[in-house]
């Protein structure tokens, strides 16, 4: 082994990489917010009486769950170009991850809705609550408790998935910045090891804050 590690340039690039980590978080958070929005629509649609809606929701969910995330990002970046929709790498990455998140979260929400016994809703109604009131005060909090843990898991996955942006040319997220630095200096191992540490800390930050939040929210 005749390789000498040069950690100094990597540490000097740390501020740049931390700015990149901010972009990574931004993509992840945005994709989760949009993903939750679409997932709720999908969960509602897949329980609807209209076959077209059910079919559309089912195809979105099955496509998102049965093809690689990278494929979905490619579709948004290269595929949509054929239809005349030219997305930049940032929106393409966001669209790909959102599509993926929505598919996985829709299943989670469906399970969450099923986990709340229908008797709860009926009991709330017979206590004089309105339909919306009962849903908001009785069903939603119980559902949230069930889906909270899968939701944080999906958030961690969203962070890890953002690293795929570099493949469609994103150069300002954590992996993108790291790759730019790498191309300039070829200190691949050092730069990417540092990026790995930052990703690990990001993932742990999410899990830890979720645990704190759960402890505040879900105690009786």
């Amino acid at each position, binding site marked *: *082994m*005749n*390789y000498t590690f040069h950690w100094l340039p990597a540490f000097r690039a740390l501020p740049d990489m931390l700015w990149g980590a901010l972009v990574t978080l931004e993509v992840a958070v945005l994709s989760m917010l949009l993903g939750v929005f679409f997932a709720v629509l999908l969960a509602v649609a897949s329980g609807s009486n209209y076959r077209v809606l059910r079919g559309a929701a089912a195809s979105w969910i*099955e*496509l998102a*769950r*049965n*093809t*690689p*995330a*990278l*494929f979905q990002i*490619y*579709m948004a970046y*290269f*595929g*949509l*170009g*054929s*239809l005349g929709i030219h997305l930049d790498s940032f929106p393409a990455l966001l669209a790909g991850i959102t599509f993926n998140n929505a598919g996985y979260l829709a299943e989670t929400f469906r399970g969450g809705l099923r986990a709340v016994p229908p008797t709860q809703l009926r009991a709330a109604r017979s206590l004089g609550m309105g339909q919306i009131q009962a849903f908001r005060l009785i069903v939603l909090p119980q559902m949230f408790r069930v889906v909270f843990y899968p939701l944080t898991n999906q958030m*961690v996955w969203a962070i*890890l*998935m*953002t*690293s*795929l942006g*570099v*493949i469609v040319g994103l150069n300002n997220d954590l*992996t993108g910045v790291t790759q730019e630095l790498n191309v300039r200096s070829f200190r*691949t*191992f050092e730069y*990417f*090891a540092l*990026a*790995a540490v930052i*990703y*690990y800390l990001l*993932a*742990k930050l999410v899990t830890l804050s979720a645990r704190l939040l759960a402890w505040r929210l879900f105690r009786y």
Partner: protein
Amino acid sequence: MFSSVSAFFAPLFETSFSLNDLMFMLKGAGITLALTFWAVLGGTLLGVVFGVIRAISPWWVNLPIGIVLDIFRSIPLLIQLVLANSFKTIIGVRWDSFTIGCIVLALYCCSYCTEIVRSGFLAVPATTRRAARSLGMSWTQDLTAIVFPIALRVGLPSWIGLTLGVMKDTAMVWWIGVVELLRSSQVIVTRIQEPLFVLSIAGLIYFLMSFPIARLGARLEKRWREND
């Protein structure tokens, strides 16, 4: 022969995608499946070992294993692949990128499989195991005849999900230079410039490889839950 067949079909579809291209993509799909096979095989064997160790060992063995395996789940696979690939160059081993891809994916698979095995193991009620022991079974007999069958039922649906997850994650391996399904579709896209069509075919192949097995897993899960 292929070219004549595609020349026949080309006016039908108005595409320059030929049967040769399809063959090239199917070969890529073969590489995807081979990667999945080796990664899942290695990952599962390691996962069973670590899972059982985690389930029966005291906390000072359990905790370090848990922390190390958690690292593989908290770092993007792409970064892990790049790191492994450059580490290979640093220590001067001459493995090809297919092997590196298999190893990284196997470790990734192992980190998830360990948790599946562990939770399956711990799902077996202590009373059931005590009953087995008081019937005169030895510790090993209890493990092989009581714990494993029950844990298998608990863990198999998630294991199927994991296998499909690994299959989808093999798409990232092209970054270190393995021409698998997604990469082969990229090669063709670069040549014939029909990204939507070619990518759709790639997506269809992924879907066909994943969907039936995903359905099987969902059905097993449902059926076994009814029997509980």
